């Protein structure tokens, strides 16, 4: 499935709710359902510090694709993290750097990615792209 199709799917899932509380509940459920990150991977070199919440992001490169494992200490952040992983994990570096993440705006979570929020999410997206670029460079070299 293309990244755009996954994004459309997410928008569809959220469109069933127009109440904020229900949307948050869905996000919380998604956060809960995401596979637990191995505690041993929650090392300082994989942490993205935010002033509000903390995100861990661990990349692996396998047969030309980047696999992301991620987590957060806050459940709502974790829910958004799970969505980002759903869209971008298992993709080629070019797909990762070339995907515009428009679904965040569509489902009304844009404020969570404002630089002032400092919850680690914006840095997480940057970091995902940086890992993709690094893996690609390594592969090319």
């Amino acid at each position, binding site marked *: 499935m293309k990244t755009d199709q996954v994004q459309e799917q997410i928008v569809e899932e959220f469109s069933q709710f127009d109440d*904020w*509380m229900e949307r*948050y*509940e869905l996000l*919380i459920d998604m956060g809960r359902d995401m596979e637990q990150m191995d505690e041993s991977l929650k090392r300082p070199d994989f942490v993205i510090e935010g*002033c*509000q*919440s*903390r995100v861990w992001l661990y990349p692996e490169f396998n047969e030309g694709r980047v696999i992301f494992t991620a987590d957060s*200490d*806050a*459940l*709502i*952040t974790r829910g958004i993290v799970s969505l980002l992983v759903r869209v971008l994990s298992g993709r080629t570096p070019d797909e990762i750097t070339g995907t515009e993440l428009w679904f965040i705006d569509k489902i009304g979570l844009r404020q*969570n990615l404002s630089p002032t929020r*400092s*919850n680690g999410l914006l840095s997480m997206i940057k970091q995902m792209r940086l890992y993709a670029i690094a893996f690609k460079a390594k592969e090319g070299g």
Partner: protein
Amino acid sequence: MIDIEKIRTDFPILGERVYGKDLVYLDNGATTQKPKVVIDRMEEVFTRYNSNIHRGVHHLSDIASREYEQAREIVRGFINAGSTDEIIFNSGTTAGINNVACSFGERFVGRGDEIVISALEHHANIVPWQMLCERKGATLRVIPMSDDGELNIDHYKAILGKSTRLVAITHASNALGVVPPVKEIIAEARRLGIPVLVDGAQGVQHGVVDVRDLDCDFYVFSGHKVYGPTGIGVLYGKRELLDDMPPWQGGGDMVKSVTFEKTEYNDLPFKFEAGTTNYAGAIGLAAALEYIGAVGLEEIAAAEADLLSYATERLSAIKGVTIYGNSSCKISVISFLIDGVHQYDAGMVLDKMGVAVRTGTHCAQPVMERLGIDGTIRASFCFYNTRHEVDRLAEGIEKVIEMFR
């Protein structure tokens, strides 16, 4: 007793609705809302007499300069300083502390000297001193605190000594609301001839501040936390000290004469007001101070004490809520956590219920580290808040618990 219905109509923003709900603004520790009189005064500056102060020969500049100097007099009266020469306008508390750290520090702090702060400080009352210590080879000493945020005064007395050049202490903790025994701290330093700076960012808006009664050497605060505009602040300093301190920043208005060989600095307070100051902000701040003066500072303190005790009672009764900073002496701030719920999650859900609180470390990471937590939810009340709003917060917390349980 204050007339709360009347008070609330004085603040236009309190009528706002967010996400279809009546706004419950409990983030007053971050910034307070502005009464109509302040907004009107600012508008008046820009629509009637905006002009650069102390410079123009024309009519408008005369009015603006007069209003600005009148604002200085109102600030002087508000904190009961001895002279307007001791009132310096700047951009806020942070600028005031940096001013003292740079100019007092430049003149009076050297290798092997010590600066004393407390475990309760906001980053703004930590970092400028660390930077000074680094520049000068001095050492930062910290008065430790208990689990409830109470400072260890015996320890304080023990670390004061011949090498101490300055004590910089918060008037009230922004993160926990705890009010340290500032008067006792000052008296102890005074005995040894050590100057004291009081960070009044969370102090000046909660009751009467009398700098001569406190006998502090410096008092700093921000306009926007005391119902005034943003970008304006005050540094009060005792004249003897300010006279002995070199200017912090160079520029226009802080000079008497300039040649390429030598510059003669202006007198106080202008020596510390380089460049065009935020005169509109100063005039707006004066309007805010007049406003709360008219409401009554003691009445404000009483109303806030009532909100604090009611909120403490309501929140303590909710199973799973832990309040941090259980001191008997507090401003109207409650810092708390909910068992098993991350503070960010709680803040996000409360927001959607129309309740504005702050979450995180509140620019006081050492406080959080000392308490072994990585942040709190902070509800900070002021006199325009109501018991009904406290109830809305409590209901919000119940909802959060239900969602994240």
